[in-house]
């Protein structure tokens, strides 16, 4: 395999970036409708850069939840980035500052695109995909927050199904052998089983436990 570049990562993530920008618009619209103003949604997308967590905290506040509940829900959703960050840590070298900045570009989609199997990752694919996703997310949010109303719930247009389709499209190339397929199915089963009982985000974190089948020789 030839060395994959920053540009390859940026190109590979193109279709995802379109969906991410669309969801960014919806985040901006919804956050503004809930009373976040126009600046806070943009700042949140630029610092948190994790759509599911951002949507979660906004919805908890809208439903009358506490600040603690809103923050906890969001951080629980993002807890998966601890193991994800550790998995790419050997490939993010450089100064403390550059590692801190590059770590922020690691999101589900850039991580999946950079995966080369057997726990290896392409640093340039990760950063290329991460930058494109970051710009899409922040610009999408800004458009939504500034344009505000006039754009309906993206679910109406079917954009919510786009995310499931995208994750499936990312999963299939990774499911190369029986252990990978088993981990995916077990992860899905754990997440679905916990969804009715656990707070949002916890089923996804718990599904990570499926990777323990890797301990079996």
């Amino acid at each position, binding site marked *: 395999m030839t060395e994959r570049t920053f540009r390859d990562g940026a190109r590979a993530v*193109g279709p*995802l970036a379109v969906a991410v920008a669309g969801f960014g618009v919806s985040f901006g619209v919804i956050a503004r409708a809930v009373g*976040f103003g126009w600046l*806070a949604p943009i700042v*949140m997308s630029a*610092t*948190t*850069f994790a759509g599911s*967590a951002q949507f979660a*905290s906004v919805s908890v*506040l809208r439903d009358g939840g506490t*600040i603690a509940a809103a*923050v906890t829900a*969001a*951080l629980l959703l*993002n807890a998966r*980035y601890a*193991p994800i*960050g*550790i*998995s790419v*840590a*050997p490939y*993010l*070298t450089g100064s403390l500052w550059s*590692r*801190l900045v590059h*770590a*922020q570009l690691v999101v*589900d989609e850039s991580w999946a695109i950079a*995966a080369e199997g057997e*726990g290896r990752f392409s640093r340039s694919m990760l950063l290329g995909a991460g930058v494109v996703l970051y710009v899409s997310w922040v610009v999408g949010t800004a458009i939504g927050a500034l344009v505000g109303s006039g754009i309906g719930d993206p679910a*109406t247009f*079917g*954009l919510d*199904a*786009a995310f*499931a*389709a*995208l*994750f*499936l*499209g990312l*999963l299939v190339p990774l499911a190369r052998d029986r252990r990978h397929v088993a*981990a*995916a*199915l077990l*992860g899905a089963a754990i*997440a*679905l089983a916990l*969804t*009715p009982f656990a707070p949002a985000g916890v*089923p*996804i974190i718990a*599904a*990570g436990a499926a*990777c*323990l*089948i*890797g301990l079996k020789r």
Partner: protein
Amino acid sequence: MSQTWLVVTLVGAGTIAIKAIGPVLLGGRPLPEGLSRVIELLAPALLGALVAVQTLGSGQALAVDERVLGVAVAAIAIWRKAPLLLVVILATVTTALARALL
């Protein structure tokens, strides 16, 4: 500080810290082989969970709705080796059409 900015600040700072754990504390250091074997399976496990929850999760409930049709069409497109953009468009259009027509 308003409630909004408090949430934005705490979630932002917390997320930046979580993402930094691996690369800042462990940067460049290789992981033990056993750990690598486990981490290798994190991607399929989490992606499997994300596909399942994005397809069937509806808040804290499970719901079979128009998304299932969209994802089924996406699965066929992926199986036929369609590019990801086409997969996404097919899933979105199928789901939107199903919502409009069913």
